[in-house]
């Protein structure tokens, strides 16, 4: 507020009157408050602080004032503008927030809509279980050995103590390659891989051999001419059947969980002597007295058949060039398909091999 000026005749400039400027400010503030959209606000900005707004025009009049009056008028206009701009900024923020909120509400979707335009694939459980088993043995320091599926008769049979007239040879219903004198078969077990390993490496040998094998069984719910097994072979100094049991117990626990164990029964395989059938503690009832009688998985036995095993027959070591006086070893084999059908309660083995995508899909990418 300036003191009355008596040195000149003050020219009254109406727009710069303090009440006039207050009016302009109040009108602007009212317009800002009344704006409901950002577009409204844009117009308010043009109308009230734009180049042609009353307050801009008033500002231009300041120069016409006496120098003494300019400062006061300038301050008055500046304060009014400041108030308007502040209100504009505040209102802009408010409206932006409101409009964003509105947009978010409008853009809301039904997130439960299915998005199945490109489903992920899946891997066959025979593959993934074989890999899982390989990992278990690799973790024990073993390696994974492989061999051909069309195999030389000598490697599939003779080298494994299954001479041409061995009664057990006819028990393995063998696919023979034409002509028969070609002396080639579809391997009836993965044991020739063990023979190949012993023939090409020196002990210590610790290998597991998962793979596809063949027998001339007609396909039905429990038999298949093509199936999968994993066999293990260890040759080292001082190995005994106790190491076989330890390995199999560990294997059983790695697949079926803590507390699993195996049981041996006498059996016969030309490749091993002594030989044993290997039973697995029933993974459903654990042979517990109150559960075993009603258990469907083991039919009340408390144990389920899992495979065959034994101490490697020294005759096999000799055929493969390993000194049986220095080295001994053990071998075992289990069925991969049967492990899957029993574990997942699959009644029909054919489901594994007819290729219906609904069989593989639930198994996902890893077991």
């Amino acid at each position, binding site marked *: 507020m300036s003191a009355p000026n008596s040195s000149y005749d003050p020219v009254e400039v109406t727009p710069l009157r303090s009440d006039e400027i207050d009016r302009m400010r109040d009108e602007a503030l009212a317009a800002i408050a009344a704006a409901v959209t950002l577009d409204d606000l844009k117009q308010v900005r043009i109308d009230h602080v734009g180049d042609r707004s009353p307050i801009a025009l008033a500002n231009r009049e300041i120069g016409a004032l006496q120098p003494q009056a300019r400062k006061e008028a300038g301050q008055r206009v500046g304060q009014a503008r400041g108030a308007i701009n502040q209100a504009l900024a505040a209102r802009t923020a408010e409206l932006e927030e409101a409009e964003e909120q509105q947009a978010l509400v409008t853009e809301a979707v039904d997130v439960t809509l299915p998005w199945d335009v490109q489903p992920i694939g899946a891997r066959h459980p025979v593959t993934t279980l074989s890999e899982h088993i390989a990992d278990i043995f690799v973790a024990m320091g073993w390696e994974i050995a492989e061999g*051909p599926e069309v195999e030389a008769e000598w490697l599939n049979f003779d080298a494994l103590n299954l001479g041409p007239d061995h009664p057990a040879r006819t028990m393995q219903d063998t696919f023979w390659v034409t002509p028969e004198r070609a002396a080639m078969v579809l391997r009836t077990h993965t044991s020739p891989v063990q023979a190949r390993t012993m023939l090409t490496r020196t002990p210590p040998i610790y290998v597991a051999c998962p793979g*596809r094998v063949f027998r001339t069984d007609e396909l039905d719910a429990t038999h298949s001419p093509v199936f999968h097994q994993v066999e293990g072979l260890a040759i080292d100094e001082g190995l005994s059947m106790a190491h076989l049991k330890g390995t199999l117990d560990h294997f059983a626990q790695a697949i079926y969980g803590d507390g699993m164990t195996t049981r041996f029964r006498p059996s016969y395989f030309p490749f091993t002597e002594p030989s044993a059938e290997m039973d697995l503690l029933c993974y459903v009832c654990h042979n517990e007295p109150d559960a075993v009688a009603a258990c469907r998985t083991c039919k009340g036995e408390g144990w389920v058949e899992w495979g065959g095993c034994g101490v490697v027959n020294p005759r096999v070591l000799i055929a493969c060039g390993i000194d049986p006086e220095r080295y001994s070893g053990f071998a075992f084999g289990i069925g991969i398909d049967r492990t899957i059908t029993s574990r997942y309660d699959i009644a029909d083995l054919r489901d594994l091999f007819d290729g219906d995508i609904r069989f593989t899909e639930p198994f996902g990418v890893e077991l």
Partner: protein
Amino acid sequence: MKVPVSWLRQYVDLPADLSTVDLAARLTAFDLKLEEIVSSGISGPLVVGRVLNLVKEEQKNGKTINWCRVDVGAHNDPSVPDAPGEDVPSRGIVCGAHNFVEGDLVVVSLPGTVLPALGFEISARKTYGHVSDGMICSSAELGLPGDASGIIVLEPGSAAPGDDAIALLGLGEEVLDLEVNPDRAYALSLRGVARDAAIAFGVPFHDPADVEAETVATAGPGAYPVQVQDPTACPVFAALTVTGVDPSAVTPPWLAQRIELAGMRSISLAVDVTNYVMLELGFPIHGYDRSLLKGPLVVRRASDGEKLTTLDGVTRTLTAEDAVVTDDRGPVGLGGVMGGEEVEMTSTTTDVVIEAAVWTAPMIARTARTQRLTSEAAKRNERGVDPTLPAHAARRVADLLVEHGGGTLEDGLTLIGEAPVPADIVLRADLSARVTGVDIDTIAAVEALEANGCAVEVDHDWLTVTPPPWRPDLTDPYDVVEDVLRVVGYDQVPSVIPVAPAGRGLSVAQKLRRRAGNILAGEGLVEVKTFPFAGPADWDRMGLPADDVRRRQVLLENPLSAEEPGLTTTLLSGLLRSLVLNIGRGHADVHITETGRVFLPQAVEAEAPIYGVDRRPTVEELDAFAAVLPHQPYHVGLVMSGERVRSGWAGAGRPVTWADAVAVVRHLATALHVDIEVEAADQAPWHPGRCAAIVLDGVTIGHAGELHPRVLKAYGLPPRVVAAEVDLDALIAASPAVGPRPDFSAYPVAKEDLALVVDVSAAAGPLATTLASSSPLIESARLFDVYTGEQVAEGKKSLAFALRLRAPDRTLTDEDIKGAREAAVSAAASQHGATLRT
């Protein structure tokens, strides 16, 4: 081997209260695995009854029933008032059958009886106006063979009312069906199983072969003349003759029942007793009708091509490996396997020559295999019999024929050869402990072996073991260990984890196959496993040309199906079958893959060598296998049908196209860090205009694209199915140990678009490659538009590429950009005849 428990108990003093289940469990743990316990499942009271009176009553439904009073001895119930003859102690029973009369002996199931054939427990029930207090049984109701049209009427005087009919009819017999391992020859006999049971339970064994038989002089006049020309085929031959056997004599019921329970058919007395003795002793016997023999029996090897009709009616062509028994006419029996038809015992045979011979086991195995003939005799002879038994076994048969057939044993035993003496086995005394890991000392080992029938001599740290004659399988020190362990107990083996040396983990190929599997799953493909069998029908459906190399397959001697005579050369044969199945089951969008071996024969067919087993084959000898075995590379195959992007609420999807098949292969190669090239190709079963060859270092390793419409029609598949197959082994072999290093510049990118006009038939892929390599400043050239139409000339198309340019060391100048663009245009022009679209 089926073992009737009551027969078994005759030779071994098993505890009277031992249940069959416990017996079987112990035998299974010892070495004879139980398959099943066979029994009738019938539980009483099933008794003999005498029909006292019988009143026929006609019913409203037209049927006539018999209202009977039946005397069931101690089971009679005096309190039934409304029956005829109620003054006599009896039971009232209604019966609908009519094949019996008053006074007949019948079988009655009283209330409480369980008959599995009926599926319910018998109870007294009201029927046809009476309370029927039981049931008169037919054969079928008891699960017995025989006439099912009426009830069982027993022989008069064969039993008394109230007798237990379960025992009378043998319905209480339990039979152990045991799995006998191929090394356990002796266990194919009651004698052998009983001996194992005795060892397992530690109870006395009564050897049926120990019975003192009255000796027959070997030189008697009744000895049938025999010559053994080849003792390597037949080390021991014994024969006895029984004459005057009554052809009408029937097999005693107990004997017939035993052999039937053991799984053989009762045929005639003479045949039944030979089978009985075989089951009892495990020693196969052959009987000849003496009246049909011409001259002495001769044992020799057959001559190649010699013929014999065996008693199964099959005429067989023999080889010099087979042993025959001949008479003057030629072969009359295939030694140790099956007799000949011409001299077979018949229903009129009165004079029998009994042959009990020891045959060389591997020879029998070979004959049985080459003749595809498994007989009960061969099963035992190929495993090895007790060679000390022939004279005893022949005598046992003769005695039974004399006893039950009224025959006369002729004086004179033919006995040629001597039982071979089993070789001693020498082993370290601690071998059992070392091999099994069980703490077995010398005393325990010797005790176990002696329990098994071995003789053992201990000399310091060594054992000398003489196996008993019934154990031809005991030849090696480790065999001995197994016999020790089964006595000590397999359950005694402790559990010790061996420590393997540090391993190398999975091989590179194993890791990369896993990676490939995961990539394929990530591409939305579902893995299947199909059988690798295929044949010309598959090649025809796939439209493979007559000279296509994939038609040359590894064939099998004994394929399961004539349609699929061998192994497949392409994974598509199995995948297309799977696709058909899936579509048949109502799936439309089927994207399946398989990783597996295919089988490609060697150029020249060859034979795999067979070596001895007494030493390791040499390196050269081992290499010979690889040279003849088929090439068996891993392939990846895939087929896709329907939509690649599925239609749904968000809009229309996208059908699979040839490009999807190629894309999967590209992704696979990229994941393995392998640079492949894609070229146009014409290869069945693909569409000739939509087939890409996958090329690696100039070699085609696979194909991808859309399948030929004719192939889809042949399979009954919908149109536009796409497929790919690639040699995974080749991709893995090309995969570098270390992948490419990252190489990029942080300077700004410049973008230039380039539209080039080329012939409609020109390939875009190579052009893109040319552009990308035309200047070091060009980072990439990506095709973003293909145009044909009015704005380009007839027979031409426009390919629009987005170039990204960047320098490793500076911001590009306008001159740089202009220069690179010109280099690209000129390379496109010179190498592809492309012109800049104006």
